[in-house]
């Protein structure tokens, strides 16, 4: 049984003459412990796909099952609660809170879902150490390099031990070497864990490090298109 099932997702923005079809009949499944790269050029619908899986956008048609839960049926409150519990998101713009240290940015996650415990603090430091940031725990984002910021953002997305990790263009602001390093760290975290990860990228070299690659072009899965 796969952890994530995306079935016949279609998403259109707007209506009438300004209507844009961002995704059309997209389907795939993803198993536990796997890192899937979604590869496609800019404007192909990658971010739209992540937003739908995250429950931040509702698909126009189709369904999303996470551990058999039909998340596309959630209202915005249920979606937010589901996200807090089961989903980790890494934004393309990292969106670290600028006046908080790296560790405090991680602790935002338990803060929003209740109280910060001692275990939370220990977990935050352990995750930062895993991503090579042990020495950077008390630095603010401005005091970190681009790669370090991206790794803090990944560590933050892992704070709630999500089943589904969604990562948008993690390497767009990094050179190839640093980008690959970030993807390797991400993959080794996922392997052997009861979770899965979708990483969106427009860079084929980054996709190489993933377990599977899903190509999308103009909102369609490329494998479904005639060659």
């Amino acid at each position, binding site marked *: 049984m796969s952890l994530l099932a995306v079935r016949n997702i279609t998403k259109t*923005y707007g209506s009438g003459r300004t209507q844009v079809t961002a995704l059309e009949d997209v389907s795939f499944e993803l198993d536990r412990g796997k890192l899937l790269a979604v590869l496609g050029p800019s404007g192909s619908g990658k*971010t739209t796909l*992540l*937003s739908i899986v*995250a429950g*931040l*956008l509702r698909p126009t048609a189709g369904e999303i099952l996470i551990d058999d839960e039909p998340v596309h049926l959630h209202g915005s409150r249920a979606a*937010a609660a589901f*996200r*807090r519990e089961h989903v980790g*998101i890494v*934004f*393309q*713009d990292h*969106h670290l*809170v*600028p*006046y*908080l240290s790296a560790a*405090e940015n991680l602790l*935002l*996650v338990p*803060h*929003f*879902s209740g109280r910060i415990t001692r275990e939370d603090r220990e977990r935050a430091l352990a995750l930062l150490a895993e991503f090579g940031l042990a020495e950077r725990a008390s630095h*603010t984002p401005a005091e970190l390099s681009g790669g370090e910021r991206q790794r803090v953002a990944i560590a*933050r997305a892992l704070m709630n031990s999500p089943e589904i990790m969604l990562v*948008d*263009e993690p390497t767009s602001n990094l050179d190839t070497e640093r980008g690959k390093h970030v993807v390797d760290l991400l993959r080794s975290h996922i392997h052997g864990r009861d979770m899965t990860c979708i990483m969106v990228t427009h860079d084929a070299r980054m996709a190489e490090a993933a377990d599977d690659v899903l190509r999308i072009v103009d909102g369609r899965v490329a494998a479904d298109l005639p060659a």
Partner: protein
Amino acid sequence: MLAIKELLGGKLKFGLIALAIGLVVALTMLMSAMSEGLITGMTGAKGSLAADALVFQGDTYLALERSVLSAEALEEVASAPGVASSYAVGHVIVSVDSSAEEFDARVFGLGDRFDQLPIVEGTTAAPGPGEAIIDITAKANGVEIGDTLHLTPADAELTVVAFTEHRRYVMAPAIYTDMATWERLYLASALGTMAEGEGVSATAMGEAAERITGGASIVAVDLAPGTTVESLQAELGGGFEVTTPEEAALAGNGMPVMILAVDGIQVVSLVIGALVIGVFFYITTLHKTGQIAAIKALGASNAYVYRQLLLQITILVTAAAGVGVALALGAGGSMPPTMAFDPQVGRWLVSLAAVYAMAYLGSLFSLRSILKIDPATALDHSGH
């Protein structure tokens, strides 16, 4: 947690805005103290007269300067039904030219009711003929206990036996004497002025003198139970004007206009304060829509985000209130005692409450934009 960390992370930005709000608070406080000071300075001696009602001559618009009541009129008021007790109050404008600095003063003849004056220095005995109790602000003009004041145009002398306080009228210190002394001063100054006019006959002057002998400017009365200002007015008829000391104080000398102006400045400064806070936080909120979208996507509720904003506003306004009160007290402390500055804890608390209320009102701008921020936009790099 976020709110306080953000304040600490932007000390300069938030410090400057707290200072700006602090200046607005200081302005509000100063205006409130000055309007209070203006009222006591302009009307203290009038409004503080111990009485249920003051009876003026008819059609004088509650002006002490114009009202004249003859001995018969005083008797008519004293014996009117509903009047429990009464005493005569005389008023006359003089100048004092004997002290280091010449100054205007208002002489009040005060029946036999000197016990109503708070004595801050000197004897507590009622002043005898030729003696005077004077408002403490005259000290700024060099007046001391035991001084002999020379008054013009009456060309009379008074000996200062005590100082009282909060007894000024039209910003001039009040000088309290017994009625006989007041009458002498009144006649001397009224007749002195008449004598200077050409073609005023000795008979006319004699008639004027006769009219005032045993009279007063107004009469202060205590009402018997069941009698009201209105019923006494009806009883006495159009020859008299009856009102409370408080209302008399606020009538005339442009007081309504002045109070309106000072209160208007207070209201305007409150509105400016609310706008400053409201716009500042609105702009900061707009400035960090991406960040707010992200923390919403991470699970923060609208209520959480708005609570953080309210916490920041509360901290900032509290800091600003501290700055503002300190500035207002500093400014007030460096004012000469004759300046109208009379801080009142109650009014300041009301003004501060108004500042908080306006600040929270201003935060509603931001609430609207917080509610509108879609967490989905956190993922959207292209800014759709």
